[in-house]
């Protein structure tokens, strides 16, 4: 963690040891804690985290569609042609692109998680930077996926 963050927790203007202990007391006290997500102003890291969850739920729902497509495409020559015909329609292309987008975002955000598990990008600044990188990289991949689908 950078010195910038330490200053917030323990400002250099803090006068004495007794000052420090009062900070600790305040942290441990039974003050009401607001954890209601609907009333908290969210930082960028929260948005990338929630998008990771939203994309996960979308993918969970999408499994049924993908299994149906796999089932049909493998069932017979006609089934394969049916799936190919469906993939030609603009609406189906949009759905495939949406699912691909969710998958690509989920993948990129997941890779960030694995990197953070190794201890990199865990600071406040690192977290914000990581979130921005996830958004930029996944946006580029999603555009490329759109180009591929159409």
């Amino acid at each position, binding site marked *: 963690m950078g010195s910038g963050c330490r200053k917030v927790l323990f400002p250099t203007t803090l006068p004495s040891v007794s000052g420090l202990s009062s900070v600790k007391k305040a942290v441990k006290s039974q003050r009401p804690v607001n*954890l*209601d997500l609907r009333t908290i102003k969210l930082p960028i890291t929260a948005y990338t985290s929630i998008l990771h*969850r939203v994309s*996960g*739920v979308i993918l*969970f729902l999408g*499994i*049924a569609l993908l*299994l149906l497509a*796999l*089932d049909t*495409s*493998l*069932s*017979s*020559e006609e089934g*394969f*042609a049916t799936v190919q015909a469906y993939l030609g329609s603009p609406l189906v292309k949009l759905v495939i692109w949406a699912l691909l987008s969710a*998958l690509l975002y989920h*993948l990129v955000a*997941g*890779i960030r*998680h*694995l990197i953070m*598990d190794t201890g990199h990008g865990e600071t406040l600044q690192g977290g914000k930077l990581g979130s921005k990188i996830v958004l930029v990289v996944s946006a580029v991949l999603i555009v490329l996926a759109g180009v*591929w689908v159409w």
Partner: protein
Amino acid sequence: MVTNVTNFSRSGLYDWMAQRVSAVVLAVYFLFLLGYLVVNPGLDYAQWHGLFSSSWMRIFSLLALVALAVHAWVGMWTISTDYLTNMAIGKWATAVRFLFQAICGIAMFAFFVWGVQILWGF
């Protein structure tokens, strides 16, 4: 101490590990399939059928299916315990959450069996 009896392995650490191992399997499987489709734009039925007929692809796909079941369960469980709470939806939260988790579990089990049927049924 185990305070929630509905998670995957009754241990947050094991859930954490399972989520990561399954994630890597799914990432490799997805990237392989996507890569295969990208480098084979003129894919026909015989080639597609041949790919999924091979033993290694069936093993790879079954592995991905198992990973998917684990990964989806841990993920949906995490989301349900975070958002379907008394604070968010009121006093019936525990019942609603349990129902939601049951639906997710049954859906994932159905996806898994369906996937096995697809892989060995054509």
